[in-house]
């Protein structure tokens, strides 16, 4: 069987996981088991962000699954996130100023494609994102 071709592009969605991570250690993890209390989330604002980026993730998968590697990363996962952003900006030859903007300028949540910020903070609108991605990824 022929090996599937590796996608040429890289898309990273930066958003927090729902639970507490660093410091919550032991008890922070109870939230994983007891999330849906009376239909509410324990960490409601995080849940809202996850739901909104979730719909964008699904659209991205529909449109770009075969062309881009799509990852969701928590900003608290520093040992992975920072080296990955540096690697992407170098791999896709992003100019230095734009690289600095990618590494230092993202808000929560953010979508980064090939080392460049596509949408960040309150720009999480699918039409806006799709328009920006069309310029970057040829399908």
């Amino acid at each position: 069987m022929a090996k599937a071709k590796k996608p040429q592009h890289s898309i990273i969605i930066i958003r927090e996981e729902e639970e507490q991570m660093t410091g919550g250690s032991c008890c922070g993890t109870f939230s994983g088991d007891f999330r849906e209390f009376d239909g509410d989330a324990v960490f409601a604002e995080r849940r809202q962000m996850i739901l909104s980026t979730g719909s964008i993730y699904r659209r991205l998968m529909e449109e770009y699954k075969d062309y881009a590697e799509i990852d969701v990363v928590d900003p608290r996962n520093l040992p992975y996130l920072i080296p990955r952003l540096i690697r992407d900006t170098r791999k896709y030859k992003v100019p230095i100023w734009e690289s600095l903007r990618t590494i230092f300028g993202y808000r929560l949540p953010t979508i980064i494609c090939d080392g460049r910020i596509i949408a960040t903070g309150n720009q999480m609108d699918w039409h806006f994102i799709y328009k920006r991605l069309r310029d970057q990824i040829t399908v």
Partner: protein
Amino acid sequence: MSGLLIVGVCIALFLIAYVTYGSYIVKQLDLDDNRKTPAHTEQDGVDYVPTKSPVLLGHHFASIAGASPIVGPITAAVFGWIPALIWIVLGNIFIGAVHDITALVASVRHKGKSIGMIIQDSIGVSGKKLFNLFAWLTLVLIVAAFLIITANTFVAEPAAGTASLLFIIVAVLYGFFVYRRNVPTLPATIIGIVALFACIAVGLAFPISLSQSTWVLLMMVYIVIASIAPVWILLQPRDYLNSFLLYSLMIGAVVGLVLTNPTIQFSGFSGFKTDLGYLFPVLFVTIACGAVSGFHSLVASGTTSKQLNKESDAKLLGYGAMLIEGLLAVIALITAAMLIPADYSNLMKNGGPVALFSAGVGQFMTTLGIPLAIGKSFSALVVSAFALTTLDTATRLGRFIFAEYFDQEAKETGKAAPSVLTNKWVGTVATAGAGGLLALSGQWAAIWPIFGSANQLLGAIALLAVSVWLAKMGKSNWYTKYPMYFMFAVTFTALVTLVWGNLTKGNYLISIFGVALLILSVLLGSLANKSLKNIAVGRNSGKSQKTTA
């Protein structure tokens, strides 16, 4: 003996275990990358997201590492560093890491269901209800233990007290600018980290000296407010800033340890009986996180199982991440073992394990050119920040569990739950109040082993659920069953001796918690035993039917 040599030997043992026993467990669990994980079958971009193993390792490790793998080993060093080290290494390899990987795989094979749901599937609805009760009691113990630990740290290191109060303000400002004013994350973080060091400087210049009980009362008020407030104000920003602190502390401690290469001065073995109690079972419940931790089953089945990209990744995430945490526990143990026994006793009496750890790491950091006072305050601030986050989170979750319990009861009886019992303030004050009352008893050394027992009991229950599941599948389960028997034996013995010990000393409140946990463990154990017997009967009758046919 060289501390660095011990760390080196432990790393080698963990690597060998990962390659050998870890691979054996993988084979037993029949991990197969052709079998699609829930991250793919249930993929929704919200909870179920296929995630590469390096990404998921970062998430998983940050979720399991914290103050507990530091506090436990330092406290247990009282038995001597050799038994503590042996338990960390063997406990990790044969129980802790096995517990984590099997809980993860069991959850994956149950469509990413949490271990609570798996328990319900295996031992019925009563098991789930008891599990809820157990969770609330454990959270109260967590609140009590960390209230005293933090208060003791602030009494011993008043600079850390000031810095921690200021850090709360920094976190609130960070939350406001990042989550409400849309300021980019990293510049805000850099300013936050600079402000954090400014907090340490202000703390050193203006230390706040208060008594232990005053700190406990202040923090009780604080956690009630913090756990009711929206998460973006405090919990979310502080958790984010904590991630920088966690990795800074780990890098500082490891690099400092390598450069310092401390000599072990503490006694290798101090005897079978110490102030904490008998080596068996107390050592095994004092070092919970760092050797085996039941809470990890919640991380594994809560988030990680829903994001596992392929089954073979479970080895790195379940087995490997636990071994990394074991290494953190070994480093914490070294900070105690490099002291002479008199200094150890003195630091434990005046400040407790966090102050001792801070003094040790502060000493390591001097080799990096960081003045001892700053290194000490920084380490104390970091572990206190973890402890404060733990307090906020525990109280918040306690409130939700409290309300849900009464809601469930009401649903079963068909009547509406009294609004007073589901009110958020009532649940919060009940959780913080119960924890605070325990904390005001000042018996930190008595509370920690009971909290450890609760953690280990959860581990035993998770191993039990997994053993039942493996038996149902008709698979060999000796590698989870024997650790489960051991963990139940440890937990029962610990709770009986701790309850008896506290009763004779007149610590009635702590004893009540111990008795409640003991009753819960007996009930859960008997439910599970019944379930296992039913499976055995079912399998035997199946065999006899086949023979008859």
